[in-house]
């Protein structure tokens, strides 16, 4: 197993897409900066009463799951697209080992990079807000927890992306699913009756990360339920991916 992890780690490092994805996470920082600046300007003009910036994470929260999901997609979709998956499969004992190794590698990279991004986002927002009383500090309730759980959410997204790409065996297919799936709750919650609308909108990864951190008004679930759902995403992704890779001809 550790051999296969070493192999997958080198594959991920020698894949250009990995670096494109990681570079793209800077867009979340830029967006947070712009949003925090615009809110700060509003505060300067109108005083308190508008939306606060808080930790700043919610301003660009939808971006990291999509990007780290792509990291997971590219970790296997390129092998399917080129057919290299066949060569890979001839060199290993069991297919689920390959999947677990890929999951471990993308989850680790997404967790670290996601964490760094979350802290960078937080500090960017606080730097823009400066002395205005609309920011947040780690002394506040749930602020540090929100930053930490956002990083964890990135790891979940990466495994989800890997699972999607393994099941769909197609780069475009997995990327479309990765964008459409988190958007669908926003659409569905509009015509679902209560409490379904609340539940469905609480199922996205950014929302679950906030609920896990017990951020007030973050969603319908408490921290433990949110944790179970996030773990469930990982388990279901890996389970479906394992079934798919084991039972299909390569």
């Amino acid at each position, binding site marked *: 197993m550790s051999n296969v992890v070493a192999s997958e780690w080198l*594959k991920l490092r020698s894949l250009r897409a990995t670096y494109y994805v990681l570079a793209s996470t800077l867009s979340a920082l830029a967006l947070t900066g712009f949003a925090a600046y615009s809110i700060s300007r509003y505060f300067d003009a109108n005083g308190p009463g508008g939306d606060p910036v808080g930790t700043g994470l919610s301003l660009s929260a939808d971006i990291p799951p999509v990007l780290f999901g792509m990291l997971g997609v590219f970790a296997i979709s390129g092998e399917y697209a*080129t057919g290299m998956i066949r060569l890979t499969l*001839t060199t290993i004992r069991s297919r689920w080992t390959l999947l677990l190794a890929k999951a471990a590698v993308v989850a680790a990279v997404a967790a670290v990079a996601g964490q760094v991004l979350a802290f960078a986002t937080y500090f960017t927002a606080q730097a823009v807000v400066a002395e205005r009383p609309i920011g947040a500090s780690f002394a506040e309730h749930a602020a540090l927890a929100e930053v930490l759980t956002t990083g964890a959410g990135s790891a979940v997204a990466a495994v989800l992306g890997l699972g999607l790409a393994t099941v769909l065996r197609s780069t475009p297919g997995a990327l479309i699913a990765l964008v459409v799936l988190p958007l669908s709750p926003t659409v569905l919650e509009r015509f679902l009756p209560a409490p379904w609308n609340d539940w469905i909108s609480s199922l996205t990864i950014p929302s679950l990360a906030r609920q896990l951190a017990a951020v007030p008004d973050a969603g319908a679930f408490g921290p433990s339920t949110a944790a179970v759902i996030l773990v469930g995403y990982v388990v279901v992704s890996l389970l479906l991916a394992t079934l798919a890779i084991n039972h299909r001809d390569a």
Partner: protein
Amino acid sequence: MIEVTDLTKLYGSTRAVSGLTFRVKPGQVTGFLGHNGAGKSTTMRLILGLHTPTAGKALINGVRKQELRDPMREVGAMLDAAEVQGGRSAFAHLQALAYAGGIGRRRVVAVLEEVGLAGAARKRIAGFSQGMRQRLGIAAALLGDPGVLILDEPVNGLDPDGIRWLRTLLRSLAAEGRTVLLSSHLMTEMSLTADRLIIIGRGRLIEDTTTADLLARFQSGVLVRSPHAARLSRALEAAGATIRPAEGADAGEEPVPGRPAEAGVDVRPIRDVGAGAGLLVTGLTAAAVGDIALANGCGVHELVSRRTSLEEAFMEITR
């Protein structure tokens, strides 16, 4: 050792492989022949556990590929050299594969050296020629120094030097006691490389024989051209030969130099054709044909042993 027993694979209602049984023994190079779509690649994928057989089994060293303890050290494969991710360097590509089998960096360097890619090791595969990719594919198959090698069309895209190199390599690997199975469409190359031939058509086994036996079976032809063709025919038939008119070499018609010869005919410049009609004699040696002609007072304008190429033999039996 590769053992294929009653192997059958259906894709939907299409029978790609049908009740195939053969063995690939160690110590020799076994050629795997068949027209496009005959089921060669499918059979190789089934042996490698990439596809699941509908019925029957394919074993490597007595077990299914999935049951091999250390697959890279037991079997090496090249299915399609184009199936690589171009963004990586040749070295990173091989090193990633090597890691999975617990194989060290030194072996990666050695294999790159062996296939002649040491100079291009740090270059991206995307910039590789087909021949270089082919060498890279062979390098990947050799990584674990396996006892069984399965190569699908390894000669494609190699230059004459490369073909020669590969032939020598495969023959020496077999001489070391390894099992080598390779498919190719290049018949001449196959007749030079393979000791044994497994020929399949429409997913079924057609021939499982040695290259020498197969060629010997088709090699008995003698072309004789005589102005007394009718008399000579009777004499030869009386001696037990089978006679056919030589196709594409009608009397008096000399092949235009430089014109591609018609398929199935051994090309030889015919200098003095005269009025002799060509006869294709099977069942007698050229010497016997000459003696019979002399004994019967038949003039002979041309007398040659007509060697059948593997290509002709292949076309004949897969017809």
